């Protein structure tokens, strides 16, 4: 009771005043789905691995990447990076060079000899993978990591599928491919080459397999009927590109015409240039805008002196020459013949008109649903026959390496669940971190770093890799251009801008927590969060 003169109350702290009761809106931390992740056919968590790369921890970045995709060095070269097309940074200056950082991480892993994390304990289950292309290798990797015994049966003499027999060396050096394949085999995956599966049921039975993943690819070239005399030299793209892997290279002559407008046509034309063709010309029936090949590949080809004849079809092939007919697009955009003909010199014609799948191994499987030359699969990648899963080019989908790798991962997860008699549930997707969710004021201005290219003279005279990797400094810079859309990157903004000290910092890697005793719900944290990782929700009053 004894107090100093004129003092009647004990001093106290304002902490007794729980201002949280004023709140009508409550801030909540959340993870939104970054658009890059959303666009990745292989289901990579790009934002997450860039987060590690930003701090210079490339091994952690690579390990995070490899959880979804075992072939980053291949990806960094051949993926068409739809992630970059979706990147929010494109609204600011230009998209983050995700593909080039992946390229760098993949090379770094090969250079440093990083190995995958050891697999889970053996489950005792045995899975057959048919085809050692991207899809099969991806499935084998994921299945092996889950503890299953995996055996790959490959019809060809080496692993890689279309990565080896379809993609030219100047885009994917073989030592890179071999390195990444070997790393998968090091997990204990058994690879049998020159082992074509003719009857999948018989092979499964003979080997005692519990499930199978089919990924045989599409290796049969589509033909078009072209009247030709006997002296005309007509080949197909699969033949040419496969031939490049053998001892004797295909003989294409001095003037090569490639028929088709896809990425394969571009690959063949660029290969022909490198084999010494003075003239490599692509004949395509529609326009550049309508061409299925990616524009940057078309650009690279044009730089290398590849000629492209738009709006033309081949009518006839003779000795040393072909006849093309000019086409015109009708109002629906469909090319129509015009009756105007032109003669072009050509020592050989290479057809690059797409590929079909050899489905003969399924002939004896009852009830297999096949539609348009490809196998129907459910959302779990399983065919109509229980235990038989399929992916890659042999199922209905876009035919790219990345899609194939994505199929492999997805199928592996479903096979794993199916073997346990369960259904794999990937859980609901987070809401998308769209550009309007970001406060881009906070990001430094920084324009994109582009990968150096081999000089043009070397490009047309050798099979050396055209697109070179970023070095450490430039890769780090590029990684740090990431906006980390929808995922906290611990910038401390919420912790700093709260007028009520109602944000608790939990330390590196642990993010933050709201102290709802004092949070008044003003919303400054959400407004000033650069990456949109805080939302305001109405309070239950």
């Amino acid at each position, binding site marked *: 009771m004894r107090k100093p003169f004129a003092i009647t*109350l*004990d*001093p*106290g*702290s*304002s*902490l*007794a*005043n*729980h*201002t949280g009761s*004023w709140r009508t809106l409550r801030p909540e931390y959340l993870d939104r789905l970054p658009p890059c992740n959303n666009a990745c056919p292989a289901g990579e968590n790009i934002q997450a691995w860039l987060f590690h790369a*930003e*701090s210079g921890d490339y091994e952690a970045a690579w390990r995070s990447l490899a959880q979804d995709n075992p072939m980053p060095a291949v990806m960094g070269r051949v993926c068409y990076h739809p992630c970059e097309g979706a990147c929010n940074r494109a609204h600011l200056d230009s998209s983050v060079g995700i593909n080039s950082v992946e390229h760098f991480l993949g090379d770094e892993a090969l250079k440093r000899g990083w190995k995958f994390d050891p697999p889970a304990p053996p489950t005792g289950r045995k899975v057959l993978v048919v085809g050692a292309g991207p899809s099969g290798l991806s499935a084998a990797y994921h299945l092996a990591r889950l503890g299953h015994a995996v055996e790959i049966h490959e019809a060809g003499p080496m692993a890689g599928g279309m990565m080896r027999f379809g993609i030219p060396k100047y885009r994917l050096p073989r030592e890179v491919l071999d390195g990444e394949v070997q790393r998968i085999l090091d997990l204990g995956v058994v690879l049998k080459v020159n082992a074509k599966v003719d009857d999948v049921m018989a092979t499964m039975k003979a080997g005692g397999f519990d499930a199978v993943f089919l990924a045989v690819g599409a290796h049969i070239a589509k033909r078009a009927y072209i009247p030709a005399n006997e002296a005309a030299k007509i080949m197909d793209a699969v033949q040419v590109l496969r031939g490049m892997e053998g001892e004797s290279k295909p003989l294409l002559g001095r003037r090569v015409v490639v028929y088709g407008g896809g990425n394969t046509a571009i690959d063949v034309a660029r290969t022909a240039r490198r084999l010494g063709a003075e003239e490599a010309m692509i004949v395509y029936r529609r326009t550049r805008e309508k061409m299925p090949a990616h524009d940057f590949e078309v650009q690279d080809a044009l730089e290398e002196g590849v000629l492209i004849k738009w709006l033309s079809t081949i009518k006839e092939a003779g000795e040393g020459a072909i006849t093309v007919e000019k086409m015109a697009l009708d109002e629906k955009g469909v090319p129509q013949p015009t009756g105007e003909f032109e003669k072009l010199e050509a020592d050989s014609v290479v057809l690059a008109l797409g590929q079909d799948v050899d489905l003969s191994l399924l002939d004896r499987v009852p009830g297999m649903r096949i539609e348009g030359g490809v196998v129907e699969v459910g959302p779990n990648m399983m065919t109509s026959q229980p235990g038989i899963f399929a992916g890659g080019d042999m199922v209905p989908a876009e035919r790219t390496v990345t899609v194939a790798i994505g199929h492999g991962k997805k199928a592996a997860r479903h096979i794993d669940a199916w073997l346990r008699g369960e259904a794999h549930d990937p859980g609901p997707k987070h809401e998308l971190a769209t550009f309007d969710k970001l406060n881009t*004021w*906070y*990001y*430094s201005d*920084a324009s994109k770093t582009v990968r150096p290219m081999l000089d043009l003279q070397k490009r047309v005279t050798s099979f050396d890799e055209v697109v070179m990797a970023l070095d450490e400094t430039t890769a780090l*810079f590029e990684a*740090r*251009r*990431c906006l*980390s859309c929808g995922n906290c*990157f*611990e*910038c*401390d*903004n919420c*912790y*700093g*801008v*709260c*007028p*009520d*000290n*109602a944000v608790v*910092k939990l*330390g*590196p890697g642990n993010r933050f927590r709201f*102290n709802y*005793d*004092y949070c*008044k*719900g*003003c*919303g*400054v944290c*959400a*407004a*000033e969060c*650069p990456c949109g990782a805080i939302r*305001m929700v109405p309070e239950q009053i």
Partner: protein
Amino acid sequence: MSFQPVKFYQTGTFTVGNRLLPDNERSVQSTVRRTNSLNSGHRACQGCGEALGARYAIDAAMEVTNGQLIAANATGCLEVFSTPYPETSWQIPWVHSLFGNTAAVATGIAAALRVKGRSETRVVAQGGDGGTTDIGFGCLSGMFERNDDVLYICYDNGGYMNTGVQRSSATPPAARTATTAAVGPTPGNPFGQGKDLPAIAMAHNIPYVATATVSELRDLEAKVRRAMEFRGARYLHILVPCPLGWGHDSSLTIRMARLAHESGIFPVFEAENGEVTGVSKIRRQVPVEEYLKPQKRYAHLFAPRPREDVIRRIQEAADRNIRRYRLLEEA
């Protein structure tokens, strides 16, 4: 400028913290060791810019002085919401006397410390724009003129907010307050009145004068640090948006301060011995409308009929600031 921005570490020094920066380059506010001088539980409105500005400034001062700091506080929002007797949010030695005598109280504390030979203990005085530009102006000018060893911090929210948003001599032209109604041919606060206190402080030729906003934390902290390198009278003028008096959403406090800077309405600079030594450049210039529109105190400029003439005058004033302080030129 005292503050050199980091060029590129994802968010550089724009954000409060940055995990990619070395510890010694991080802000005081990003660390868990910050004093939280103004603690939770205070009674400021939601999104109060003044509460934020005060914590930024005093935490920075506590860091540079190793916790050897005494603050004198004028009457005003900051005093009322932080210290309803006998409770307080302050976690530093803190004295409140009257509305108008803060500078004099601080002078007295500084004198006492000098007599006691406690040169390591530093003194700050702080108040709102009312207590600084109006009521405490005489004491403040005296403190400047005598060059007393005090850092005076003014948190400028442009009015007497806790008594119901009355006009002060820091209320900007055309703003509606309870005493400058939005009626008549020149609605809101008249043009051509008020005081430019940073300029007045500079005219006293004191060692250090600076302005800052709550949207540029790193700049603000650097200015407090720089101010503490001087002995004598120093003045720091911080723009602190007020959701209540300005009539903007409570979540927009920092955005309003940023737009005040980016439009040129509030020039951010520092001056030593009466000479401007550095300015914070505009990064992405915006027209003044962008700053005015979200604030209900300017609603009469947009409806029922747009007052382009008035907006033009405000834009002209911003443009004058841009020219005068060279806010747009390359550093």
